[in-house]
């Protein structure tokens, strides 16, 4: 199979304009008879569904949650990047493009990323027009903050709930179209298969989660906006329901899966508290604007803290190691996520961790309290303010900025982060890998598109903070509406697609059989047991650090768990009704196959880049070492019929505008 990425010719900054000017269009009358299925209603899905419906297509939107507004984009906290340069700090489209490519450790496509940077400013305009209440300063204009991996402030935010506000904006646009009858909403529905007819995506098989009915839905195009697969690790910052099933079933129908081993481990999450843990909670990267990360400089202090003989606030400055500021003076606490996560792991592995399990570092706001407090005292004309008054003023400013995050932390950990530093540790957060798509966001199956986190295209081997929201909305609002027409222009004569065909029949039967096999299995063990086992293997051998031996071990272990799963899983309840255990089992079945592919991909990539850190490939200082002459490609995997023997295809990455360098944040 040859991978054709369809990147338009011409200078980088004119490719998208050129594409838009030459893409084929579908006239309004024809649009009315063309159906599009959008699976998933996060930022990418709801923005795509809304935009396509506004254009006149007949849209069906599916979500497994009870409402589209609950998709996990809602949980994004810190912000959304856009090259507006409102701060006049030297930002530009090119700089956002450059930061993203560099942040992705030179493993993303130039043309896609530049397009993303180009449309970023439009996103902010669009969202404000929809009534998204971004943070504003006293002049009534939009405020910005900084995120990791950049030296400008280009992140727009709404306190610590930016994802929520953006999603509600897209959801409202979508609701408007549902109200008009242009979108048919199928909530509590899960896509279980893609139906391919004569090589083209022609519909899906979905399960109605309330009635258990297996339904056929046909369409002229299917758009998968189903998010990432971080839950393969069981413990992640993803929602409990986040899953890979739609993407994986498309993969099994012929869509290639690209760079599956590129997962992002987010440096600032609340550490694991016990075996019962069901998920991990992120503390926004925006906290690194004001929080300083440290561990004790001396092991005896770390031990004393772990034994609770010493409080972190009692440790003087000279006994603290602000290791990010020490190792990376240029970016300090705002290094990209992969770098920050690995640095935390390095310190904890070396014995400097600060919680009972030894897997936590401090995120400390003491100096921010003081800095903001002094600023406020000056503004308020309090020239003789005492230290306590200053700290109190500073805490108020911090509360204004991150109040909900501090409250969230206190709820979970039962410690007041205004009084004692937060404890944090890296956790699985985002997956840069995903379905392989071309410049038009089409997968290798004609008519099947993937947008948002579900595709692989824009973040390379590491995503910068506040860029996921940007990409999701860019794909849904501004890219797909143009590119999908280029395909659908050929579909105007197709007419209504029948679901009464052998292909739909076969797909439906396959799903029914799978459900029967799982539920009639006389097992004894709940689904979570297998999921947790898989997660542990993935975290230990395909997590923040990987090596050949571990990956090989993981592959054989996963195969064993998979076998065990099909033999011993128990799913109670009926199939013709609401059955959460069945839903989980269908998802875990796919994770058990994907996990193996991730390990294979990680094993194949004999270099370290971004979130993929192979211990065999590091510099003397412990930094990631790329092997550009061999691995400057996208690894796109084709399903062979057996999850253990996938076929690898390579798309070479060509850098015409950026000089590929070794990434340095020192």
């Amino acid at each position: 199979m040859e991978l054709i990425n369809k990147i338009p010719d011409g200078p980088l900054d004119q490719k998208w304009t050129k594409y838009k000017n030459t893409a084929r269009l579908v006239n309004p009358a024809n649009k009315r008879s063309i159906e599009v299925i959008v699976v998933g209603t996060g930022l990418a899905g709801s923005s795509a569904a809304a935009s396509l419906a506004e254009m006149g297509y007949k849209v069906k939107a599916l979500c497994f949650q009870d409402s589209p507004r609950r998709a996990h984009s809602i949980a994004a906290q810190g912000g959304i990047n856009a090259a507006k340069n409102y701060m006049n700090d030297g930002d530009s489209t090119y700089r956002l493009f450059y930061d993203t490519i560099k942040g992705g450790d030179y493993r993303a496509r130039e043309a896609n990323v530049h397009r993303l940077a180009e449309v970023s400013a439009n996103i902010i305009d669009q969202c404000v027009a929809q009534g998204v209440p971004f943070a504003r300063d006293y002049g009534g204009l939009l405020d910005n903050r900084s995120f990791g991996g950049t030296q400008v402030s280009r992140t727009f935010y709404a306190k610590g709930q930016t994802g929520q506000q953006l999603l509600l904006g897209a959801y409202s646009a979508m609701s408007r179209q549902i109200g008009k009858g242009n979108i048919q909403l199928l909530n509590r529905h899960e896509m279980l298969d893609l139906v391919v007819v004569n090589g083209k995506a022609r519909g899906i098989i979905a399960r109605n989660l309330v009635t258990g009915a297996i339904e056929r839905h046909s369409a002229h195009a299917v758009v998968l906006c189903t998010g990432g697969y971080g839950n393969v690790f069981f413990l992640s910052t993803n929602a409990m329901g986040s899953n890979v099933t739609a993407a994986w079933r498309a993969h099994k129908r012929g869509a290639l899966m690209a760079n599956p081993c590129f997962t992002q481990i987010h440096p600032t999450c609340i550490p694991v508290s016990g075996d019962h843990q069901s998920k991990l909670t992120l503390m926004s990267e925006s906290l690194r604007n004001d929080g300083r990360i440290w561990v004790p400089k001396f092991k005896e202090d770390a031990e004393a803290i772990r034994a609770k003989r010493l409080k972190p606030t009692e440790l003087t400055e000279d006994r603290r190691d602000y290791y990010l500021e020490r190792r990376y003076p240029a970016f300090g606490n705002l290094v990209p996520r992969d770098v920050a996560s690995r640095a935390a792991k390095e310190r904890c592995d070396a014995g400097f961790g600060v919680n009972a399990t030894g897997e936590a570092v401090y995120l400390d706001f003491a100096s921010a309290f003081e800095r903001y407090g002094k600023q406020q005292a000056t503004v308020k004309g309090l020239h003789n303010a005492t230290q306590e008054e200053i700290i109190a003023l500073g805490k108020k400013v911090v509360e204004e900025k991150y109040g909900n995050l501090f409250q969230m932390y206190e709820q979970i950990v039962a410690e007041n982060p205004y009084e004692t530093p937060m404890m944090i540790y890296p956790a699985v957060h985002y997956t840069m890998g995903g379905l392989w798509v071309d410049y038009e966001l089409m997968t290798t199956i004609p008519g099947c598109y993937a947008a948002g986190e579900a595709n692989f295209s824009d973040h390379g081997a590491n995503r910068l903070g506040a860029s996921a929201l940007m990409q999701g909305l860019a794909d849904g609002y501004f890219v797909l509406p143009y590119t999908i027409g280029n395909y659908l222009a050929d579909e105007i004569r197709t007419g209504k697609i029948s679901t009464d065909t052998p292909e739909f029949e076969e797909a439906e039967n396959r799903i029914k059989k799978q459900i029967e096999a799982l539920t009639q299995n006389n097992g004894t063990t709940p689904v979570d047991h297998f999921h947790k086992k898989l997660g542990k293997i993935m975290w230990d051998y395909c997590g923040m650090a990987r090596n050949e031996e571990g990956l090989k071990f993981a592959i054989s272990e996963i195969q064993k768990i998979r076998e065990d799963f099909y033999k011993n899983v128990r799913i109670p309840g009926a199939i013709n009704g609401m059955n959460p255990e069945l839903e989980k089992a269908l998802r875990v079945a796919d994770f058990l196959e994907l996990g193996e592919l991730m390990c294979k991909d990680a094993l194949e990539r004999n270099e370290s880049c971004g979130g993929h850190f192979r211990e065999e490939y590091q510099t003397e200082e412990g930094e990631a070492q790329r092997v550009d002459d061999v691995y400057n490609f996208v690894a796109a995997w084709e399903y062979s019929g057996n999850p253990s023997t996938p076929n690898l295809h390579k798309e070479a990455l060509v850098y015409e505008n950026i000089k590929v360098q070794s990434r340095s944040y020192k």
Partner: protein
Amino acid sequence: MENGMNLTLKVWRQQNAEAPGQMVEYKLGNVSPDMSFLEMMDVLNDELIRRGEDSIAFDHDCREGICGMCSMFINGEAHGPNRGVTTCQLHMRSFKDGDTIFIEPWRSAGFPVIKDLMVDRSAFDRIQQAGGFISVNTSGRTMDANAIPVPKSDADKAFDAATCIGCGACVASCPNGSAMLFVGAKVSQFALLPQGQPERKERVENMVKQMDAEGFGNCSNIGACEVQCPKSISIENIGRMNREYLAANLKP
């Protein structure tokens, strides 16, 4: 974990919307105080499945208090005894050894039970579809985001209203089963922003009409909603909606 808590759980079990339901008692031991309430439910479900019984269905997703999916009425209160949190953020340290905990679904004519603790809240979606939006198409040609300054206090108030997670705790805890806090919050968000002005009148009329059609009760300003709201949305938003609706109807 040793020395965990022993709890008696009284849980509403109902097979589906049509079936009758009842409270069923379960004993659960070794509950760690560091568990979240939903993790405690996971442990109970794990035991039930291993015993060959059907697990308890409940809605949950993000487990960090933002998606609004979790929805349990715990010991007579929506999202349990703590303030400003959802069920998923409630931790077992809020309970003590030997406690009996009642766990019920949201009760409202507008929220029919789907199974066990799961209810159908699509009424909220339909209220949004009736007018909870600003009619602007995607184009990339809207005016610059900074073209209209919005006073910070208005932007902050709009944001506070917009933080509603649509969980339905307001309806569940209102003795009248009213949905006005939810609707009031959405009406307020747009009424406070300049972008929301052109459709101000139609929006409040249409949303209130849909709210009434969904079978929710009437608001008599009891105020339980704002106390039980996990996002502490103020009933000032209901007051604002009242004013908006009156103004909309008095205008020709």
